[in-house]
């Protein structure tokens, strides 16, 4: 064996390995047959936190609970406006909007064979209120207008709910998982209801009236649902027997699963959409959402410059919105005019939905120069103070926006650092320290009302808001928010929002970036899919063909 041969061999091996790894740019595959025709497989990222409807507040948990449990009312298809009967066949409301009467569906059985009655309804609502899920705190949704005296059993199939306060969104609450009905007998057999304590059994097990029942849930692996033979809606028509929701952390895994047909749906990050777009058998369809993308600014930071409105205005001009849309969200985002997302009621009160700020470095410079924050000899403003930008670890879009924003700030003569931190660390920083200036954030809807956006964003801590601890406060804005919340008059509400907008937009506590779109890449053999932002993933509707 001479030395030359070894050398050649070594180089050969190297090349071979690289070639083997990357040669596959040429597609040779033909049409794939439908894989697992009786099963829907969804590859996603998050594991559910709990299967208990009284406890669930995160998307991943909702995805599962929506198909196992049912509420009194429901939605259909993509329609978010209309309430359809579910466990209640019909309902009526008193004139003072306080007392609601529901007639319940008869002959409904839980998946374990127990009968569904009014008893279960009362038990479920009271359970949410008594248990008051300490970890998620989701019970606030019901406790806004209900207490344990609210629900009254009229007879086995009639129930009456008396609200503590009139509330326009009451039916919408019942459509959320927290209003879903559990089997009293099952819960009582497994720990019952203990005040301020979660039911550990219910977290891992589920017995509901919905079309599917839980086969098993293996944490960080999969949730498998199988059809509930007792389902009152029946199994005529086209449905699948089984639903598999798989958890996969690596995007590559989910991409490959979708491409080779193992997955029918897959969660794919924005920057990877191009890997599946245009591939045979894959549909990439965006849907509008109310998920907003924000940058919060700390007005009580130990970097005192952020207390100045001009500085925050300048920062709003320094943000490259188009680049965020095109490069971070690959085009799947639209501009956000103010607190209220486009599409939601009253969004037009915000400059008719046209954003006030645009990317304009010249304007930003002018504002800063006028305010006296000129560049020093080294070309730095603010005496070379460092602006600290943060985002939560693992968020690729926010990373892109942060680094790009940092570069814009450098252009402006502002020094900045970008740091990524884990959630608990970032929360601690945000709420317990003043060691932050700029954090990239997001917000999703709890229910379809502008109050869910404007109040936490620009309402001050004095009215129990300021969710992001920006320290921003304006008394008029606070007043307008409260006014809008407790009025039912459209005009009045509209005016209040407009007044608030005109104030906060020129003294912005945050940079309003955009509303991102949901993308649900899926195989083209999946039929019956429709996107409903309030109740995603209703597996009963889907089938494969």
């Amino acid at each position, binding site marked *: 064996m001479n030395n030359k041969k070894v050398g050649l061999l070594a180089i050969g091996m190297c090349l071979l390995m690289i070639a083997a790894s990357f040669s596959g740019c040429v597609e040779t595959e033909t049409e794939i047959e439908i894989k697992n025709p009786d099963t829907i497989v969804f590859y996603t990222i998050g594991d559910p936190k709990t299967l208990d409807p009284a406890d669930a507040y995160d998307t991943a948990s909702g995805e599962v609970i929506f198909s196992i449990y049912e509420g009194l009312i429901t939605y259909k298809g993509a329609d978010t406006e209309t309430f359809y009967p579910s466990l209640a066949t019909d309902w009526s409301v008193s004139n003072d909007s306080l007392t609601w009467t529901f007639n319940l569906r008869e002959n409904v059985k839980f998946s374990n064979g127990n009968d569904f009655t009014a008893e279960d309804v009362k038990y479920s609502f009271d359970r949410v209120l008594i248990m008051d899920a300490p970890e998620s705190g989701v019970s606030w949704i019901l406790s806004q207008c209900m207490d344990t005296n609210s629900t009254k059993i009229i007879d086995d199939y009639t129930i009456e709910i008396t609200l503590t306060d009139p509330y326009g969104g009451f039916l919408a609450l019942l459509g959320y998982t927290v209003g879903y009905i559990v089997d009293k007998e099952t819960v009582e057999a497994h720990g019952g209801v203990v005040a301020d304590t979660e039911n550990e059994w219910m977290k891992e097990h589920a017995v509901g009236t919905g079309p599917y029942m839980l086969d098993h849930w293996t944490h960080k692996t999969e949730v498998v649902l199988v059809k509930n033979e007792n389902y009152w809606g029946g199994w005529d028509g086209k449905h699948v027997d089984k639903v598999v929701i798989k958890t996969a952390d690596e995007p590559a895994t989910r991409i490959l699963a979708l*491409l080779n047909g193992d997955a029918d749906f897959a969660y794919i990050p924005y920057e990877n959409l191009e890997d599946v777009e245009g591939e045979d058998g894959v549909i990439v369809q965006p849907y509008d959402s109310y998920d907003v993308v924000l940058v919060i600014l700390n007005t009580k930071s130990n970097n005192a410059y952020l207390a100045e409105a001009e500085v925050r205005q300048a920062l709003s001009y320094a943000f490259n919105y188009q680049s965020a849309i095109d490069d971070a969200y690959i085009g799947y985002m639209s501009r956000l005019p103010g607190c209220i997302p486009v599409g939601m009621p009253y969004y037009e009160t915000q400059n008719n939905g046209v954003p006030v700020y645009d990317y304009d470095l010249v304007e930003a410079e002018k504002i800063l120069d006028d305010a006296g924050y000129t560049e020093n000899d080294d070309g730095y403003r603010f005496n070379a103070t460092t602006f600290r930008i943060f985002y939560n670890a693992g968020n690729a879009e926010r990373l892109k926006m942060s680094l790009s924003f940092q570069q814009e700030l450098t252009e402006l003569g502002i020094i900045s650092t970008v740091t990524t931190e884990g959630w608990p660390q970032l929360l601690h920083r945000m709420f317990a320290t003043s060691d932050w200036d700029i954090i990239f954030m997001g917000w999703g809807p709890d229910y379809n009302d502008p109050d869910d956006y404007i109040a936490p964003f620009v309402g001050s801590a004095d009215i129990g808001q300021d969710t992001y601890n920006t320290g921003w406060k304006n008394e008029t804005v606070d007043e307008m928010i409260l006014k809008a919340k407790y009025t039912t008059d459209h005009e009045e509400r509209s005016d209040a929002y407009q007044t608030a907008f005109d104030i906060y937009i020129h003294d912005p506590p945050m940079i309003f970036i955009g509303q991102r779109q949901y993308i649900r890449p899926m195989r083209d053999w999946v039929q019956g899919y429709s996107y409903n932002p309030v109740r995603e993933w209703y597996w009963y509707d889907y089938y494969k063909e």
Partner: protein
Amino acid sequence: MKTWEYITRRLILLIPVLIGVTILTFVVSHVIPADPAMHFAGGPKAQPETIERIREELHLNEPVLVQYFYYLNDLVHFDLGKSYLESRPVTDSLAQYFPATLELTIFAMLISIPLGIVGGIISAIRRNKLSDHITRFIAIVGYSLPIFWLALMFQYAFAYQIPILPLEGRLSIGVSAPPPVTGLFVVDSLLAGDLEACGSALYHLLMPAFTLGFATLALILRMTRSSMLEVMGADYIRTARAKGLSERTVIFKHALRNALIPTVTVSGLSFGALLGGAVLTETIFNWPGMGRFAASAVIGLDFNSVMGFTLVVAITYVLANLIVDLLYAVIDPRVKLGGV
């Protein structure tokens, strides 16, 4: 010293180590300015009362030392606290993830150790021949490769381009897990007589186990090769030849058993490396084991989980080394248990 005496002694010595491990991880996890209570309570949307209540429950308002004693007290009662990423007791999580990692690690060893030994022998007896150079080169590349890169490449090559192996997971879709006895799917499915599940489990194990074991394979190959070379020069090999034994008998009977002694040690040590490597391998192959759990716990600063995980890994690792030492005494009669 009797074997049981030795084992007891080692197990007793394990206690201070484990206490040390808890102190170490506890210190590490409390250096960091984070607010688990708020995170627990659901982030910015959480109600202040909820946060305060959780803080109380977790004794977060107490001094660190007091917190540590709470932790130790719970630990004695086999309570490792609650994972706030999974919102269930850490012990439950570990009970689920540990067998998966154990299965993966065991199979990684089952693949890497025999292959490594065989490769090492071939390399040693064909010293400086072509096959020696090839095996050595593969070995040295083997432990120079970032394991996650290797995993991604394997996945891309064998699950996508040439789809002969499953992409991820422990079982195929449609195959249900066998009733849990040990938590190792291969064993459980055999116990249940479910050959389909067993086959599926093995099929899914192949790629991740090989990826995980590749570096170990390389290590064992090198170790076997060099100890084999050393042993082949020993006097008793000369004696064996002088007895007129065939070369085969000399190598496989007289040389191999002696050469395996250092290999056993390396295997024990590599167990730790495998547990560490499992973090990366499991993440990529979507293996629901402790490694992936730990990775997400570390990222999410779920320190109860991290501490529980570290404790279990430390116990496993130390026990593995104990087993190796016992094995050592079996292979090498000269070894007396109890020598420090």
